[in-house]
């Protein structure tokens, strides 16, 4: 625009004769120019009024551990997508936010990065809220509202920043289903859409009718999995009220009643319906079991269950009954059940236990917790966790040692709440003869049962006859080791730490969350 005016100005000075004639034209041109500028500015504004103003890039730097060498750590930098959903609130998934060391955010897909922080995070639901303290960041950003995926007319889009440009790809609705959450083994409602887009599952919003109907947390080929907006909204609302303390779940196993003979055996009258409870393990919170094996559950919170264990959700349609443990209900909430027991119909109240990662024999995750280990004369002891097993790579369920993997199928018991593993031996003259030993589950040390590393450390204080006796779980591998205790042991530990470049001989870190 400025060049145009400059050139015009030269013409005016060069030709006074045409000046008068041009004056009218100038006025017209200036008007056109101003009008054009105004239109352009408005178009730009309209463009900014779109998803560019509501979607941001989140860069996470975090620590990453090598469970083969739990004393070492690397750093990982990762980008995901956030959506502005309220005043100073950006929604994303909790995935990759564990062990974070730095959060930065970027608007418009390019340009300046702004320091951010996580204000709320929940690994159960895989949700997080992020904010930026700098006022300037929020200029031009516009919150979006949630909508119901179920009420969409079918026109879905997945939006994200990619290489500095806003990518907006069409998606087709597939189904609502109930499946394991990304970061915990609880079943939650999931929106599945199909799209040609690739590499999503990192908080990208799924939009319909100009509203966010879900954010994505995983992708398998063309199928993209998302958390529905109504589920997100219910948790955020509950969290604001202070009612949310994590997700609950049904701590029992059931089977369908598709076989009428099963119901007939239990003398259930009327049309086949409901599911049969088959196993009710002890609750880790010490709460009452409420249900018994061979109870038939007809109804939960007013929803009738069919013979496959589905109910009709008002928003999502047929869903597995597991969703009734997370449908506007949280850990500690009561759920009403109508059941059939011993030939009678009963109404019972089931209090939802909170899912705790540590309540499994092999904890499913260890977020914000540096890997624990203890090194004794080159023997490396670690808790057996899924994080450890995932060291075998993407196919860890197939590649990790069978027996270690199979412990995941076993419940924790009071007599056996957790497992400590001799994961490897760092060769030294002290441990000669044992260098090849690894993946052995510890049973006792110096006669004392060991389930946790602090117990192991304490047991090592009770050596008798100048030796440590380490006994391993029954199996097809080594059962017993004997090693020198006292000065020889301490010298060996110091020697191993120095030789292998390990700063600390043990770490029992406290969880942050």
């Amino acid at each position: 625009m400025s060049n145009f005016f400059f050139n015009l100005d030269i013409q005016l000075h060069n030709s006074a004769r045409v000046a008068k004639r041009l004056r009218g034209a100038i006025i017209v041109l200036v008007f056109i120019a101003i009008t054009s500028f105004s239109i352009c500015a408005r178009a730009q504004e309209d463009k900014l009024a779109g998803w560019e103003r509501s979607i941001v890039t989140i860069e996470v730097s975090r620590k990453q551990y090598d469970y083969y060498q739990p004393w070492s750590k690397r750093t990982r930098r990762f980008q995901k997508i956030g959506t502005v959903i309220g005043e100073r609130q950006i929604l994303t998934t909790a995935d990759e936010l564990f062990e974070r060391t730095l959060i930065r955010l970027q608007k418009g897909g390019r340009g300046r990065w702004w320091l951010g922080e996580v204000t709320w995070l929940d690994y159960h639901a895989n949700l997080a809220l992020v904010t930026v303290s700098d006022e300037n960041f929020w200029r031009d950003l516009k919150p979006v509202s949630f909508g119901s995926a179920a009420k969409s007319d079918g026109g879905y889009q997945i939006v994200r920043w990619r290489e500095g440009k806003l990518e907006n790809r069409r998606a087709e609705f597939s189904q609502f289903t109930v499946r394991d959450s990304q970061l915990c083994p609880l079943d939650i409602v999931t929106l599945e859409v199909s799209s040609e887009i690739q590499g999503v599952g990192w908080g990208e919003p799924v939009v319909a009718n100009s509203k966010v109907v879900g954010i994505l947390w995983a992708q398998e080929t063309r199928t993209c999995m998302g958390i529905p907006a109504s589920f997100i909204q219910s948790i955020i609302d509950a969290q604001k009220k202070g009612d949310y303390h994590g997700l609950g779940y049904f701590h029992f196993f059931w089977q369908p009643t598709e076989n009428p003979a099963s119901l007939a055996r239990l003398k259930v009258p009327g049309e086949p319906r409901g599911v049969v409870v088959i196993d009710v393990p002890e609750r880790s919170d010490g709460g009452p079991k409420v249900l018994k094996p061979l109870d038939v559950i007809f109804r939960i919170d007013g929803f009738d269950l069919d013979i496959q264990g589905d109910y009709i959700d008002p928003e999502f349609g047929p869903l597995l009954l597991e969703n009734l443990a997370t449908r506007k209900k949280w850990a500690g909430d009561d759920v009403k059940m109508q059941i059939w027991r011993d030939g009678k119909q009963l109404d019972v109240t089931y209090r939802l236990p909170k899912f705790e990662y540590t309540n499994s024999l092999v904890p499913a995750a260890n977020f914000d917790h540096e890997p624990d280990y203890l090194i004794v004369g080159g023997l490396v002891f670690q808790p057996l966790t899924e994080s450890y097993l995932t060291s075998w790579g993407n196919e860890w369920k197939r590649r990790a040692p069978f027996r270690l993997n199979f412990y995941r199928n076993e419940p924790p018991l009071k007599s056996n709440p957790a497992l400590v593993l001799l994961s490897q031996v760092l060769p030294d003259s002290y441990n000669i003869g044992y260098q090849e030993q690894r993946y052995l589950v510890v049973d006792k040390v110096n006669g004392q049962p060991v389930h946790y590393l602090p117990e192991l450390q304490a047991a090592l204080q009770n050596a008798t006859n100048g030796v440590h006796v380490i006994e391993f779980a029954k199996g097809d591998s080594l059962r017993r080791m004997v090693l020198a205790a006292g000065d020889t042991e301490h010298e060996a530990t110091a020697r191993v730490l120095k030789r292998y470049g390990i700063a600390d001989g043990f770490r029992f870190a406290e969880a942050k969350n």
Partner: protein
Amino acid sequence: MLNNRLIIALICGWAVGSRAADAERSVIQITSYMQQPVWDAPWRFESVQRAGGTGFVIKGKRIMTNAHVVSWARQIIVHRYQDPRPYVAEVEFVGHDCDLAVLTVEDKRFFENLEPLDFGELPKVRSAVLTYGYPAGGEEISYTRGVVSRIQLEPYAHIGNRQFLSVQTDAAINPGNSGGPVIQDERVVGVAFQGTPGLENTGFFIPQPVIEHFLKDIADNRYDGFPQAGARVVPLENPAYRTLLKLPDDNIGARVDSLLPIPGSEKLLHPDDVLLRIGQFTVSSDATILYQGNRLSAALAFQFAQHGETVPIEVWRDGCKQELALPLNIYEGDWAGGFQYTSLPRYFVYGGLVFTPLSLDYLRTLGRNAEQSNSDLYYELYYRRYEDPAKARPEPIVLTSVLADAVNANVSTRGRMLVDKINGVRIEKLEDVVRAFQSSTGDYDVIEFLSHHSFECLDHADVAKVNAGILKTYGLSSDRRL
């Protein structure tokens, strides 16, 4: 049996010297027409397969070959060297654990002018051997020279869960004629039998000590098999452990870490006993013995005894030496953990539900990832008896499949489930399944599974009406093979 489970060593060579030329006249071409059972549909058989192998004439008008060459054979045809006439052979003795068999030929003319080959000793490492055989598809004998590269205990693939002495050579591996003789100094020093996937130019043969054990075993016209000591013997090298056990620092003695539930061994040996000597062999602290110049696993020292014999051992216990006589017997507790050949799979069909014992053969039908996808079956077969012997069952039973019929139309499980109880009867073996169904007086048969106590029900009276029809529909001549 030639299949993809075994990489069969077909060790061939070229003639060197006149004696070798004579030996080839005693090398026999074997063609086996075999038909294996289908382990998850145990009344059925796979289609007949033709497989080629090799054998050689030994004393007593017998042909020695590999067990896997003649397993599940419906017919065995043998050919003499450059003789087109086929002869029918029969299996006289077979040792599936050591993968050896001897055959007989009824037609007396077969052995005319055939000299039995004599056996030699265990060859030395780095010495040359000649292997004879009939490579796949070939009608002419072939020879390969190889060098003995290693002697050690190796897993024997045919049985799947045992280790015996084995000799590794650098002879090229060609799919085909297993059972051929490996010759050195005009004597048979081994029987070619397997290779290892991923190792090129590597073949294995069964050496003379294993062959000799097999031949001694069948001398009483019955094959018993290799007995087991049932002791897990581990190195005892750590000075602290040796000091605790008051052992001299002489690198002698390996420790008994645990014991299999074999009565003779459990009674005589204890964990933390230190084996100083087994038979004539001194046991070193790394749990090895020195055998003909080769340092080998101490487990070998137990493998010279026959079933029912005792082996003198010297153990260190409570700070002093003790002389003991350890009885050695065959152990059948791990039978299901190895491949089976001696009898057809057992089964019982009730209301279209097919029950069969859990076995390695059955697990193999579940595909490559059976270990992961059916981990409870795998655990039950290989770990339960070690870790939880009180809950272990002599013969775990699997509901393997459901033959679809109106009577079981609503049974939701499709099989691959470990059975816990039927009609309240704990299922320890297949006969319990039959008894539990047949003795039921209730309206419903209740089958409970180990996985989270899930269950299925059948209408007892309805099943009784349709059992025969289901068998007819699916072509079963009997509802059971017990």
